[in-house]
């Protein structure tokens, strides 16, 4: 019997002929990601344990993206300690203030490649499945173990296959696909499992869309999420991909679900659950204090461009503030060069530095008691973005931009898009 992509990657990483779902294996990891919330603790831990060198400093990336630029003297000191650690251990892949969000950078710079096993101190490391890598989140102690030994234990996950067919009908977007899966199957849909996309329509999901979907797969509990290598992957890497692992045709899947993309419409996840999903038209009219476009889920050029279609030549509604955070400096520069940022700024958007922005509730655009935010990010848990008394709604860039224009949550089909 053949292997799913999760089994194929873990088999190689464990140095075994074959592995099966449920089996426990010790794997060699291919790449490690650490961001600024945990890098300081990581370096302190290594020092405390007397670790004086990493397994392979060239396979570790450190990114200052969560608190960037530093919002306080304490964080500035933390960043300083991180830079010292980066220097001490000879880590080359260091991304300082304003370079962007870790997941965007690791894909953009092609540090992550198809078939890799990647661990990150961030739950949204599942994003790497967009380029057919097995990415997953771990904590700081496990990261200390991984960066020192180059290994970590894993249980081989069962895989759920999701077949896509039909064609997406804009303004429905790939964000709506993952919101649909969360709403339909719940926040534990793929708990402890891998989610693998296939079907005749999978080739139509562009890289940005794959990153949005794989990113939020963790909200359904996914350990890994895969878009197996195909023409989109080969084009991105400019390679024929002959050596990249692929799922075998006779692989064993725990379950197969399918989605008719032509049936998707703009969706919204309501507070405080990622799986409390309703069509945007049914949420129509909820007043919005803050709209946010950005994050590792939807902060790419494609997302800003989609938002600009609704905001160009208009003004953000007076009751609403619109925050935009490009996912990386490259995104920022391209959006700037193409006039997208100018359109957003002219409409009244506040453009934040490339990075995580308000998504994780640390700084820059937090919410007060009783406030409502609609954002393109990935989590609407109580207290996620500041006050536990605030409400967060999650949606696509089109839905968020259209909502910013009218000042309340709306189905983007209610707002005419600007021409030209």
């Amino acid at each position, binding site marked *: 019997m053949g292997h799913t992509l999760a089994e194929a990657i873990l088999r190689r990483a464990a140095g075994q002929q074959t592995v099966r779902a449920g089996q426990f294996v010790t794997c060699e990891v291919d790449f490690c990601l650490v961001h600024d919330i945990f890098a300081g603790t990581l370096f302190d831990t290594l020092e405390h344990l007397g670790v004086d060198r990493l397994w392979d400093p060239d396979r570790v990336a450190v990114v200052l993206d969560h608190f960037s630029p530093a919002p306080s003297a304490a964080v500035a000191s933390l960043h300083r300690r991180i830079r010292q650690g980066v220097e001490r251990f000879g880590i080359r892949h260091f991304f300082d203030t304003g370079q962007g969000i870790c997941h965007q950078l690791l894909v953009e710079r092609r540090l992550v490649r198809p078939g890799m096993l990647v661990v990150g101190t961030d739950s949204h490391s599942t994003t790497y499945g967009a380029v057919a890598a097995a990415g997953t989140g771990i904590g700081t102690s496990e990261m200390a173990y991984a960066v020192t*030994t180059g290994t970590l234990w894993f249980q081989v996950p069962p895989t759920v296959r999701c077949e896509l067919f039909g064609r997406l009908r804009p303004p429905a977007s790939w964000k709506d696909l993952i919101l649909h899966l969360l709403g339909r199957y719940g926040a534990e849909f793929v708990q402890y499992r891998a989610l693998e996309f296939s079907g005749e329509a999978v080739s139509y999901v562009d890289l940005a869309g794959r990153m949005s979907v794989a990113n939020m797969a963790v909200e359904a*509990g996914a350990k890994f999420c895969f878009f197996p290598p195909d023409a989109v992957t080969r084009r991105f890497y400019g390679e024929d991909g002959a050596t990249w692992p692929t799922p075998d045709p006779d692989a064993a899947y725990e379950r197969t679900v399918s989605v008719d993309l032509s049936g998707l419409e703009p969706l919204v996840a309501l507070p405080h659950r990622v799986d409390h999903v309703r069509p945007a038209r049914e949420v129509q009219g909820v007043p919005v204090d803050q709209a946010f476009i950005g994050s590792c889920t939807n902060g790419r050029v494609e997302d800003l461009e989609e938002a600009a279609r609704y905001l160009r030549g208009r003004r953000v509604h007076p009751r609403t503030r619109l925050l935009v955070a490009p996912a990386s400096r490259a995104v920022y520069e391209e959006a700037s060069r193409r006039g997208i940022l100018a359109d957003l700024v002219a409409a009244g958007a506040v453009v934040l530095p490339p990075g995580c922005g308000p998504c994780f509730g640390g700084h820059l655009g937090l919410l007060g008691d009783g406030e409502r935010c609609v954002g393109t990010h990935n989590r609407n848990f109580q207290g996620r973005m500041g006050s536990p008394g605030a409400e967060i709604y999650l949606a696509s860039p089109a839905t968020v931009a259209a909502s910013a224009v009218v000042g309340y949550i709306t189905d983007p089909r209610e707002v005419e898009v600007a021409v030209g």
Partner: protein
Amino acid sequence: MAEVRLKDVLRGRVWKFGDDISTDLLAPGAYAVAPLEERKRHVLEAVRPEFPHQVRPGDVVVAGRNFGCGSSRETAPEGLRALGVACVVAESFARIFFRNAVALGLPVLPCPGASELFDDGDEAEVVVAEARVRNPRTGTELRGQPLPPVMVEILEAGGILERLRAWNAHRVQTKAGRG
């Protein structure tokens, strides 16, 4: 680090929580890089403001489904451990929290039906090694899902850093031997 005794009967007051207790509730982002002494005062305060102030060492958290969903922040189990929570028993756990708790040496036990077994404030008896959960007041008992051997080993070692310490000591020793 306190020794983790998986075969002993852990007895403690039950603090009950519902489904989908997220890492944002366990370790709010606003205190993400604050010292542990400050962070622990905010554990679960958004849903139970008295919890971080009244929980006592040895108490047991009993929760519903998908406990610890969300972020990979290890500060979530770390806060519970710092408050002295002896064990978390939940209907189900989110994957990363589950791993992180074990990596830190905080016992966790998936036990479908656990929420029904207790009222808040009851005493719980838990034997992690046997996946056994009992309410002495009602005399009812449940069997949870036993932890896999790799997790038991890490817990018994006191967390994954104890393993790393041993690994590194061996490396240093080998290097010294060669030199």
